[in-house]
C-alpha cells in the first residue's frame, strides 16, 4: 500500500488538473459528475458546490499539519473563486453539483460557506484578519440571504430544501448547521445556533429510527410535506454526524451524542468486509449499488469525530477501500457498480461501467479532506507521481476504454470518441447520445 503522504500528494496534484483554464470566465474546479441521483457529464465548468468544503479543508489541514506554507495558497485561491462566483442575490454560480449549471444548491452552498468560514477562521487565528474578512463576509451573506431568509421555515422550526415546499433533508440541514456553528464562531455570538441550528437538529432527530433492527440509528433521507421518505442512506447518515457532535459539544446534552453514536452504529452494521456500504437501506430491502469509494472520506471523518467519546468504529477496511480507489492519475474513483443501479447485480470480475472509472472533484474532495489529516505531521509531502489512466470498461453493454491524462478525460469505443472533456473547459467537447445519461 502506498504511503498516505504520496496518496495525498497525488490527489492534490490531480485536483489541480481539474481547474478551469486560466482566463476563463468562471474559475475553479470542474469536471464531470456521477451521482446516485443524476449525472452531469456535459457541463464540466467550475462547480461552486460542496467540493469547496473538502478542497479548502484539505489544503488548510495540509498547511497546518505539514508546516508548509505552499498549501495555504490553493486554499485561498479556492476561497477567492467562491467570493468571485457569488451572484447578486447571495447564491453561488453553478452550485448544484449533479444538477448544474444552476445556483442555489443544497447542501452545496452551505458546504461552500463552511469552507469559506474555516478559511477565514484559520487566517484570523494567525492574525491575518484583513485577509479573512472577505471570505467570512461572502459566507455570511449567503447564509443570511439564502438559508435564513428563504429556506428557514418558522412553523416547522427547520430549514426547507426548497423555498416553496415544506421539506427537510437531514444531511443537508446538518451541513448547514455545521456552517452556522462556524459562523457563530466567527461572529462570537450564539444567536444562529440557538435560533436556527439546534431547532433544526431537533427536527432531524424526529427522523431517526431508534427501534432495534437493521435500521437502528438510521436517519431518513427526507420529509416532504410532512411525509417521511423511508430511504436510509448510510453515507448521508455520516454527513449528519459532525453537526450532532457540535450540538453535544455546545450544550453538553447527552441525546445529541447518543444520536450521533446511533447513526454511526447504523453505518457500522451495514459495512461489508471490504469496507463498503450499501447505497440505500429501506424498511425491508436495500439497493446496494453503486457503492461509494471517494465519499468514504466523510464516513471516516465522522467516525474520527466520535472516537474521543468512546464510540468505536472498525475503520481499517474503509481506509483500505478508499486508498484502493486511487487511480494512477491521482484521482480517486467515485464508486463501483453504477452499471448495477437498475439490476442491483454486480460482478467484481467484469469490466466496470464507465462511470465507475470517473474521479469527480466533488467526491474526491471528501477523500482529500480526510486523508490530509492522516499525513505524517511536520513533514513535507513528496512530489506527486501521476500517470495516464487507460481503463477497459463498458458503456451500456458495449466495450469501451476510459482514458484520463492531466489535460483530458475521454471515452472511446471501436475507435470512436464517445466522450471528450478537455480539462479546464466548461463543456465537454463530445457527448455522444449514448453517454447523455443524467
Amino acid at each position, binding site marked *: 500500500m502506498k504511503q498516505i503522504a504520496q496518496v495525498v500528494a497525488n490527489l492534490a496534484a490531480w485536483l489541480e488538473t481539474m481547474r478551469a483554464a486560466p482566463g476563463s470566465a468562471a474559475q475553479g474546479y470542474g469536471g464531470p459528475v456521477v451521482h446516485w441521483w443524476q449525472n452531469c457529464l456535459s457541463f464540466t465548468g467550475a462547480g461552486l458546490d460542496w467540493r469547496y468544503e473538502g478542497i479548502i479543508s484539505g489544503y488548510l489541514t495540509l498547511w497546518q499539519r505539514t508546516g508548509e506554507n505552499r498549501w495555504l495558497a490553493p486554499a485561498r485561491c479556492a476561497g477567492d473563486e467562491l467570493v468571485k462566483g457569488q451572484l447578486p442575490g447571495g447564491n453561488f454560480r453553478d452550485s448544484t453539483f449533479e*444538477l448544474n449549471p444552476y445556483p442555489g444548491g443544497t447542501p452545496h452552498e452551505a458546504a461552500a460557506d463552511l469552507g469559506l468560514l474555516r478559511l477565514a477562521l484559520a487566517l484570523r487565528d494567525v492574525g491575518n484578519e484583513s485577509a479573512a474578512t472577505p471570505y467570512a463576509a461572502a459566507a455570511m451573506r449567503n447564509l443570511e440571504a439564502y438559508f435564513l431568509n428563504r429556506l428557514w421555515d418558522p412553523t416547522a422550526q427547520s430549514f426547507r430544501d426548497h423555498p416553496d415546499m415544506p421539506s427537510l433533508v437531514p444531511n443537508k440541514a446538518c451541513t448547514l448547521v455545521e456552517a452556522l456553528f462556524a459562523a457563530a464562531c466567527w461572529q462570537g455570538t450564539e444567536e444562529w445556533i440557538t435560533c436556527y441550528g439546534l431547532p433544526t437538529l431537533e427536527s432531524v432527530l424526529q427522523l431517526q429510527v431508534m427501534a432495534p433492527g437493521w435500521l437502528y440509528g438510521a436517519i431518513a433521507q427526507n420529509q416532504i410535506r410532512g411525509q417521511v421518505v423511508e430511504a436510509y442512506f448510510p453515507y448521508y447518515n455520516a454527513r449528519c454526524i459532525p453537526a450532532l457532535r457540535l450540538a453535544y459539544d455546545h450544550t453538553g446534552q447527552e441525546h445529541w451524542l447518543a444520536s450521533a453514536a446511533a447513526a454511526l452504529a447504523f453505518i457500522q452494521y451495514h459495512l461489508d468486509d471490504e469496507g463498503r456500504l450499501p447505497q440505500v437501506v429501506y424498511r425491508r430491502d436495500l439497493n446496494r449499488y453503486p457503492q461509494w469509494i471517494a465519499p468514504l472520506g466523510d464516513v471516516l471523518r465522522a467516525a474520527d469525530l466520535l472516537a474521543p467519546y468512546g464510540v468505536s468504529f472498525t475503520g481499517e477496511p474503509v481506509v483500505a477501500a478508499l486508498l484502493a480507489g486511487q487511480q494512477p492519475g491521482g484521482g480517486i474513483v467515485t464508486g463501483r457498480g453504477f452499471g448495477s*443501479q437498475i439490476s442491483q447485480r454486480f460482478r467484481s470480475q467484469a469490466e466496470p461501467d464507465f462511470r465507475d472509472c470517473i474521479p469527480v472533484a466533488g467526491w474526491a474532495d471528501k477523500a482529500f479532506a480526510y486523508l490530509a489529516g492522516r499525513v505524517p505531521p511536520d513533514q513535507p509531502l513528496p512530489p506527486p507521481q501521476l500517470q495516464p489512466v487507460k481503463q477497459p470498461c463498458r458503456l451500456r453493454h458495449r466495450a469501451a476504454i476510459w482514458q484520463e491524462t492531466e489535460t483530458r478525460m475521454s471515452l472511446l469505443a471501436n475507435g470512436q470518441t464517445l466522450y471528450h472533456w478537455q480539462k479546464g473547459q466548461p463543456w*465537454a*467537447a463530445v457527448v455522444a447520445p449514448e453517454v447523455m*445519461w443524467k
Partner: protein
Amino acid sequence: MILADPLRRPGLVYQYAFDWLAVQLSATSGHAAALVSTLFHGVELMRRLSALPFLEPLPPELIRGGLALGVSPLHTLAGETEAAALAWLEPRRADAAQMPTIRQRLQPGGLLYLLAAGPLARFLAERQQNEAAGDPWPAAEALTTLTAAGFRLQSAFALHGLEAVAWHCLGEGCARLGQRHWRDRAHFAMRRAFVTPFSPYRPFAIACLTLERLP
C-alpha cells in the same frame, strides 16, 4: 416564472436539450448564435453560454434576467456575419417564416441545431405553465420543411419516448405499493432510456436534430 427566480430549474427533458445545445455550440469553430422563441429558452441558453450572441435583439426582461444570473447583457450577431452554427429553440409554427433568415445567416456547410417539439411535449410542465412555446412547430413537419428548403439531416435523437414514460409509470406504481426500492430502480431505468432514436412516427417530448445547410 423562471426569470423572476434564478434558482428555478427546468425539468429533465429541457435539461438534456439545453445541455446538448451547449455542448454543440461550445464545440463550434467559428461564429455560433441562437434564435429563441421565448424568454424561457433565452435564459436557459444564457445560463450555459453567457457569451453566445442571438440573431435578434433581445427584450429588456431577458437582459434583466441575465443580470440576476450574474451574466453580462447579451448582444446580437453582428451585421452580415455568417454563422458556422445556429441553434433554433422550439420554433412555433409561425416562426417557420424565419427560415429564409436562418438560411441566410448560416454559412454553407454550417450546422443548424434544432430543438423541436414532439407529441408528448404538451405534458411538460414548462409547456403547461406557458413558459415554452405555444403552438410549437412539430418536429416531423419542421424536418420536412427544412429538408425541402436546402437542409440535410445529419443526426437526430429524441428525449423522453415511450420506454422512458413506461418506466416512469411503473416506478410510480411501485411507490404507491410501498415498494420504494423497486421505484428507485425503475426510475434509473427511465433515465437509461431517456435518450432514444428519433422517429417521426414515435411519441417523444423533444427532438434534437442536427441539419447541415447545403450550398
